[in-house]
């Protein structure tokens, strides 16, 4: 008994910084943003309670918000899917038996994730320059007339997708680690049964990667919702609002138009969408599972 009590006291003492931080910097802001989302608040006058008017306006009257939501979901469903396919592909290649220089490749794929956001912006503005950028000049060599990328409403989002693939070294490393955990005996058994490479990938590798795919999809989804600096610096939402993403629009409402209540409502819609999508990912992952 005595020991239990002492352990409880010690445990709580050790985690007390977290308890304080959680209450002040997470729980309190979360619930006060729920409160602000029900008010009209411009920092000058006191918050005025207006019920669900902010939510109603966002969901049914603000056409820009629907554009923003569309842009963001595009980055999740198209962008994240492409990124997942590419990163798994690279990880499988890196996991090839007896391949040399794996640590070199790991470094190469990981380094882009270290680049500061402003530098990222400078770099990609130049890489995707329509006339003198490196991507379009390589496309030019193959005879393709490269698009305007960040200056074209159709190609700006694909530009950001290229950029996010370039920064997906974390995912590659996680897939690589997960591949190492798949028992080799499974592949050998499949070889003896005469399975080809494609069959092995679909029946052994992908099911084995399922937990890692789930993890990367959820963190990737949250990252898309949070991504701010790139669009803020490179395109500032343009052209034609084609890169006005969720966080950028939220930032504008809060810190450029000082509509704190409206931005808070947006924050809560974001939280609900993120929760729903996380649950959906978990369910999908279960359904696609072959075992358990």
């Amino acid at each position: 008994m005595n020991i239990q009590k002492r352990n409880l006291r010690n445990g709580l003492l050790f985690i007390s910084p977290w308890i304080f931080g959680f209450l002040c910097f997470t729980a309190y802001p979360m619930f006060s943003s729920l409160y602000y989302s029900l008010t009209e608040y411009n920092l000058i006058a006191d918050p005025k309670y207006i019920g669900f008017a902010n939510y109603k306006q966002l969901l049914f009257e603000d056409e820009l918000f629907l554009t923003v939501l569309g842009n963001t979901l595009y980055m999740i469903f198209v962008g994240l899917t492409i990124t997942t396919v590419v990163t798994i592909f690279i990880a499988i290649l890196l996991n090839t038996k007896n391949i040399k220089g794996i640590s070199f490749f790991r470094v190469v794929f990981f380094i882009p994730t270290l680049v500061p956001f402003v530098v990222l912006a400078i770099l990609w503005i130049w890489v995707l320059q329509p006339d003198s950028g490196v991507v379009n000049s390589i496309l030019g060599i193959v005879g393709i007339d490269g698009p305007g990328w960040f200056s074209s409403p159709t190609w700006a989002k694909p530009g950001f997708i290229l950029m996010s693939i370039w920064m997906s070294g974390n995912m590659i490393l996680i897939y690589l680690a997960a591949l190492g955990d798949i028992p080799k005996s499974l592949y050998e058994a499949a070889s003896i049964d005469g399975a080809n490479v494609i069959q092995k990938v679909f029946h052994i590798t992908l099911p084995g990667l399922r937990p890692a795919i789930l993890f990367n999809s959820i963190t990737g989804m949250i990252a898309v919702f949070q991504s701010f600096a790139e669009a803020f610096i490179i395109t500032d939402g343009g052209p034609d609002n084609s890169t006005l993403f969720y966080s950028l629009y939220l930032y504008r409402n809060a810190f450029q138009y000082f509509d704190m209540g409206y931005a808070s409502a947006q924050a809560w819609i974001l939280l609900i969408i993120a929760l729903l999508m996380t649950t959906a990912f978990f369910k999908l992952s279960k359904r696609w599972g072959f075992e358990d």
Partner: protein
Amino acid sequence: MKMTLPVEQSKHQRNILPNQRQTTTLSKVNKNMSKLFVYLILILFSLAFVVPFLWLISGSLKDSSELFANPPVWIPEALNWSNYKEAFSAFPFFLYLKNTLIVVVFTCIGAVLSNSLIAYGFSRIEWKYRDGIFIIVLATLMLPFQVIMIPLFLLFKEIGWIGSFYPLIVPHFFGNAFFIFLLRQFFKGIPKELSEAAKMDGASEFTVFWKVILPLSKPILATVVIFQFIEAWRDFLGPLIFLSDNSHYTLSLGVQQIMSQNDPRWGLLMAIGVAMTLPIIIIFFFLQRYFIEGITFTGSKG
């Protein structure tokens, strides 16, 4: 490490199965071909990952006529170092560097101190409610910063911290879910007997933490420092919201300020970009083991 064992087993198996052996020469040729193919694709992908960097470096050494040349110039005719020289004088580089380092150093101290204590409480002591509360910690991992950003701003404004470094530093002294998770995972792997022996000798819980667990945890603490360093060095949104006057700007904000001017000087910006990225890449080369362990640790156990 793990991978060597199954490979050896498979060689063993091959010897047992006689009909498998006949095909070895043919499959060897096949294997070498497919390996070559794998290398080719990997090299292509690596090039795609490396070329943007080379482009940045080459751009930082160009004068403005080469910068906009069409077709593009890959290697500048005369290496134009003036961009670098001017980068340090075009804006208060050293002031912004100092500000960035203040934030980086203090957040690193905060992250190591707070998260090691917290993770200890979540792993080395058995107490009621512990695992229930830990689920809340994990849940906060998925909370987008945007949800709490506005009230945090209002809170810091209320207590007069906006414009100072406090909003960027102080929260890091109160735990970070990712680091708690990482450290807890590591602490759980340390044998229980070590703490028990120390406790038998009359050591308090804190002494065990300080004298036994922390010295054993240097590699994972290094991982925390490195990750926090990079996060704080890269950060843009935090400084953008919480800092208000130029004298407190970090490098990221200073650079963005130059970029938003009319007709920014791109050669100079690229030189600053190289100067801001190179130190991190150098750190990474020396300490890459810690990075890779940290990341794979979370991914495989998460």
